Each structure stands twice: as structure tokens, then as C-alpha cells.
């Protein structure tokens, strides 16, 4: 029974990871919507970058910074946005977390267009986007640390809180914070300082506004957990790697018949970039981790020459723990959907691995990147 709970906890953890990443995607999409779809903002910015890799003019490519989005509003002003699910409660960890933001606190080159040269604006601001429940307290703690001189910023992070309410994502600048925008160089109607600070307005974005963006970009600049990438591969990419003969088999017969796909990471990344507008990425890393997770799940095997043999098929009638009777496992509350199905495969694979590598104290060893050690008890929230 205890093992069953561990299994279901494992599945729930992966599904939480899946949802958390998708939430970040949503939040980035809201800001992409604001800067690229709303008049007159969209006509008056140089570029919104969903996958920024910013470097200081003095630094090398290796030192690139990857916030969740970056906007080059004009040649004199830019904005860096980072979505955080929270800050650690413990003092030192909080400080370190804050110090990590200092990497954005220096002149940075922003992308200025799809094929244009990067531009380092005269100044830029750093915006943190944090859930409503923690935002006020985090602002108080940040300002306390700044007052004490424990950390110094030339461009103090400006904290926004977000909440989903009345069918909308609502973003507000947290009240009574000293930090403000340095956007005096851009036209007044474009200034966030006017809208959010002087007028105290909120940005309201409905899911309806971002659905087209999310249909194009299922990812953001944060590294996805392998479960997220696997679901994307299984439902949008792998079929495209089947040959005509294989497709014909599924057309004429049952698509639950397993069809092997032998592929390298490179080939898979190439296929994704052929179908989706990926600009750059850690895609090689992301895909490698996803394929390794598929190996753990028993849905792929490593074969010579760095290739993977994927056992591709329609898994939707196999809901529940692999090997269990599908109908018995099909709960009334859960649809037979791929995030859950693939999570069960991964957890089943991890359980096998855990049997081999269980720690002496009984705690599960980290056998794969998809299964993280338990969160330390003192940390109220995670990044």
C-alpha cells in the first residue's frame, strides 16, 4: 500500500511539474500578448523576445542570460521579465535567490528583430512576476535587504503580482515598493511607469487572448521537465517521423500497434525546428533528457550510434499503471490523457530503478532528472 502511495505521489509530482511549466508558459504568453497584439504598444516596440539570451557587450556567448522574456521597446529602453513561482523562506537562501537577479543588472544586448543586430539600450528595467499570495511579503523582504545594503542593484527589480480571477490573468505592480521604471525616454503612452505606478492600473489578459500564442509556442525559456517535452513529442512530433508504410498500417489497422522510430537527438531537433518556429534553444538538452526519460519509462531504448529506438503507438487505451487492466484503472475523474499516461510509465520505470538504487535510509535516490529529491521542509515555495 505504501508503495502504491509512492507511485501515485510520483505521478502527481510529474503532473504538478507539467502544470507548473504550463502556467509559466501562460504568464509569458500574457506579456507577449501585451507587447505584440495590443494597440498601440505592438506598433511601437522594436522586438519582443520570448526566448532571450542576453549578453553584456563585454561578455562572451557563454555568459548569456536567459530570463523568461525581454522587450526592446526602443534603442534607449528595454525590459527584462522573469517569472518566479516564489522565493525561499530562509533568509540566506532568499538573499542568494535575489543575488541571482544581479546578472540582469548590467548593460545587456537585446534582440532587435528576427534578423536584426542586437542592441544594448541605454537602460533597462528588471520585472519579477510573482504569485499574488507571496508578492507583498517578498517586496518587503527585498526592500529590507536593499536598505541594509546586503545586496545592491543599479536597477532594482520591480515586482509584479499575478492572480487568476474572473476568467482573467491579472498583473499588478505590488503597491508601496520603492522600485520604479526608468522609462522616461519612451513616449508617455508606452510607459509602464505611467500605467502601473502613476495610474495604478492592472494588466488583464484572458486565456482567450493568448490561445493563438500558446498554440504556436508550447514552451518558454525555462527548461521544461522531461514529462512536458515527452507529451509534446508524443502528440505533435513523433508521428511526423513515421514513414508512409507505417502510417498506412495505422490507417488500416489499430493505431495501438507499436511502430518503432529510430532517431537521433539531432534528427528530432531538426524535425521540431522544421515544424515549429523555434528560434534557438537548449533543445538538444531538452530532447536528450526527454529521450532518457522515455528510456526510463520503457518506451524507448538506446541503440548504437547515439540513436534511440522509440516504441511509438497510441497509448490512450492503456490508462493507469502500465500492465494494469485499462478499464479498472480508468478513473471517473481522470480522462485518458497523455500527461497522466506517460507519467505512469515514467514512475513505473523509476520504481524499477529505485529497487536497484534505494538509499540505505529508505529515501528514494534521484535516479533520473525527472524525479527530484523531496523539497526541504523550510522552503515554503520553490522557484
Amino acid at each position, binding site marked *: 500500500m505504501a508503495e502504491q502511495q509512492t507511485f501515485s505521489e510520483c505521478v502527481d509530482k510529474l503532473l504538478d511539474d507539467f502544470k507548473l511549466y504550463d502556467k509559466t508558459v501562460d504568464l509569458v504568453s500574457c506579456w507577449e500578448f501585451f507587447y505584440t497584439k*495590443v494597440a498601440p504598444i505592438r506598433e511601437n516596440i522594436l522586438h519582443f523576445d520570448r526566448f532571450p539570451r542576453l549578453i553584456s557587450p563585454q561578455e562572451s556567448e557563454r555568459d548569456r542570460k536567459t530570463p523568461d522574456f525581454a522587450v526592446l521597446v526602443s534603442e534607449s529602453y528595454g525590459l527584462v521579465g522573469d517569472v518566479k513561482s516564489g522565493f525561499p523562506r530562509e533568509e540566506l537562501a532568499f538573499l542568494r535567490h535575489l543575488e541571482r537577479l544581479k546578472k540582469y543588472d548590467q548593460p545587456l544586448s537585446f534582440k532587435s528583430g528576427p534578423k536584426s543586430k542586437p542592441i544594448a539600450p541605454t537602460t533597462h528595467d528588471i520585472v519579477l512576476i510573482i504569485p499574488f499570495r507571496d508578492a507583498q511579503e517578498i517586496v518587503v523582504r527585498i526592500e529590507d535587504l536593499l536598505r541594509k545594503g546586503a545586496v545592491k542593484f543599479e536597477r532594482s527589480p520591480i515586482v509584479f503580482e499575478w492572480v487568476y480571477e474572473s476568467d482573467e490573468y491579472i498583473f499588478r505592480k505590488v503597491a508601496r515598493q520603492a522600485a520604479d521604471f526608468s522609462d522616461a525616454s519612451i513616449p508617455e*503612452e508606452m510607459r509602464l511607469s505611467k500605467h502601473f505606478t502613476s495610474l495604478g492600473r492592472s494588466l488583464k489578459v484572458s486565456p482567450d487572448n493568448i*490561445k493563438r500564442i500558446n498554440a504556436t509556442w508550447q514552451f518558454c525559456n525555462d527548461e521544461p521537465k522531461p514529462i512536458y517535452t515527452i507529451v*509534446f513529442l508524443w502528440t*505533435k512530433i513523433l*508521428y511526423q517521423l513515421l514513414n508512409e508504410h507505417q502510417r498506412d498500417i495505422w490507417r488500416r489497422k489499430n493505431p495501438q500497434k507499436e511502430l518503432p522510430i529510430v532517431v537521433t537527438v539531432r534528427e528530432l531537433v531538426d524535425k521540431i525546428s522544421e515544424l515549429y518556429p523555434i528560434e534557438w534553444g537548449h533543445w538538444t538538452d531538452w530532447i536528450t533528457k526527454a529521450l532518457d526519460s522515455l528510456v526510463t519509462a520503457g518506451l524507448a531504448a538506446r541503440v548504437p550510434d547515439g540513436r534511440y529506438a522509440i516504441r511509438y503507438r497510441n497509448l*490512450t487505451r492503456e490508462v493507469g499503471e502500465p500492465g494494469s487492466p485499462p478499464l479498472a484503472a480508468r478513473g471517473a475523474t481522470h*480522462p485518458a490523457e497523455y500527461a497522466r499516461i506517460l507519467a505512469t510509465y515514467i514512475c513505473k520505470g523509476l520504481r524499477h530503478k529505485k529497487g536497484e538504487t534505494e538509499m540505505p535510509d529508505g529515501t528514494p535516490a534521484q535516479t533520473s532528472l525527472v524525479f527530484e529529491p523531496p523539497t526541504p521542509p523550510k522552503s515554503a515555495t520553490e522557484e
Partner: protein
Amino acid sequence: MPRQLQLTGGEFVDHWGDTLALCAGFCARNQRAKIFFTTFFSEKTPHALFGKLSRLVKLTKKTDYWLGALVRGDKGGRTKLKFGLFQSGDNAWTAFTLTRTIANEDVLLRLLGALSPNISEACLTSNEIRSIFEDIEEYEGVTVSVNKAVAYSHRHEGQISFFKNEAYHAVFNKAENEGKFVDKVDFSLTGPHYLHGFLARNGVAKFMAGDIGLFQKSILTSVARISSSKHGVFRNSSRQPGSTEVSAIDLQFGETAFQGRDDNLAFISSLDQMARSGIAVLHENPYVHVSLIDFFDGSAFDIFATSRKAVTIVPQVGASPFSLNRLCNHIFENFREGLIAKPEDKTPTIEEVLT
């Protein structure tokens, strides 16, 4: 396999209209005979379409239509079924055959089914079938009555209603009130014209007796016209490789369909039931975002329920009109029926989003 009926005096003559008139005459003399029609959409010509099946189907060009002969066995044995094929609209084609048995109807449907995903079958909603009958009454001055009809529940598999000898609007009203969709109707027209026919939501129509000209004008043309407008929306809707531009399609229900999590789950559950497909739920509540793959031809879609009265489908690269048609019809049958439309492109203003 029962042999197909043969027309005396030159079946499948030069023009399809004359052929239908001959068939109708045969039906008048033979009570169980009927002309079976099925309408589908294809951007290919019949020759290109049936090319893959050329060993099974011999096509002959007539003056304004094609004559198809399905032969038994691979080596050109006896003819199993003859059928006519005429263009009934923009990319719309209607196949027909004279028959006395359902077996022959199935043979023709299976043959066309083998051409998927290169063809999409016609698809009508209950409201569209009702509107066809309303138009006939209005323009022809006839009375439409339902001899038999079958309706299925959107959400409860196995719940079926049968109707017999009722006014058509009573049948449609009852079905709607019971949360059902009308699947097929055997109907009669009385008044200045007489017609006995059959119409199903998959575009299958049957002529049993009466005025074949009226049947062609009021039923077949309407099926092609209504389905053609949907097919027009489905065409060119898939996203181009590498492009960020998407072409969304809305299914508008006209009334509140999503009031809370239960409706979201009911919608997701209806998608989950689509045969040969798989879903991934990216969002379940407070709004729905589902990624769906149709394993029949690899078409992928992002499906959103972000407003109370509609769902939006975004076809991904290479998504076929066939699969879109299949998906929309599946939602109409298993969740609720609605209108298919391209959403308006509206540019929000800063005043609307900053408040």
C-alpha cells in the same frame, strides 16, 4: 452479396440527370428499390482520387459525370457494384447507385472510406437538417413529415430515441430538449409535390419515390452547399511549417456551454472518446487547453475552451480537412452541436487591457 439492380434500356446514360431520372422510374415500379447518394469532398479529380484503387475500380468518363465499376478480385473479375459520380459543388462530389439492399450501400461507403484521408465526408448538424426541411416547406409549399427518425444523446452513450410519424419540427424540438442530436430521418413531402426520401447527418441521402428533380434540388444541393461552406473553412487552416501564424476555427454553441469544471471535464471526456486519437490536457480548469493527435493521419490540434459559448480549434502543421471534419463532427455528436466559423481578427487596445 445480392446482385445490383440493372436498369433496362441503358443504365448510366450520358448525363447524370438523365440517369437519375431512369433510376427514379425504376424505383416507381419497384417498391423496395432506392437511389443511394453519398456526398464527399476532395480536391482531387476522380481519376487522381481513385488512382490508388485502379485495380479495383474502373472509371469511365461520361458527358458530365464518371461511371465507376467496382470489380470483384484483383484480376478484373465480375463487376460487384456500379456507381455514378458527379460534381455537386466546389470540391464536392456525390456518388450514387441504384440498389435494393443496405449491403450495396455499405460496399460503396467502405470503398469511399478507403480513400480517407484524401476525402472528407459531408457533415450536417441537427439544425442544418432541420433548416433543409424548413426551406423545402417555404419554397415548395409542401408539408414535411417524419416517417421515422433516430436521435442519440450527446453525452450518454446508448441513449437513443426513435420517432415515428411526427411533424419534423416536433421531432427536432424533442431531440433538442432531451439533449440529443438527430442522426437520420426518413421523411415524406406531401402537397403540390410528393417525395419519399431519407437524410442522415453524414450526408447520406436516399431517394425512394416521388419527384427526383425536387430531391436533387432540395436535398442533394443543400447537403453539398451546407457541407461545402464548412469544408471551405477547413481548407488551408493548417499552420505552415515554421510559421507563427495560425488559422483558428471556432465552434460556436450560441448558448452557455461552459459554466464550471464539470462542463470542462465533460468536454475533455468527449474528446477522450474520439476513436483513433489521443489527447494531452494542458489545462483542465479554469479553462481548457487540450492537445489532440488524430492517429488516423497524424493531424494535430490545439483545442481551447476559453469562453463560455465556444471552443476554438487551432490546426497544427499538416492537419487535414478530413481530420478537422472528423473532429468537429465528433464534438457535435459527443458534446453539443454548433456553428463552424472563422473567428474575427480583433486588435485589442491598451484601454481594454489596462484598467
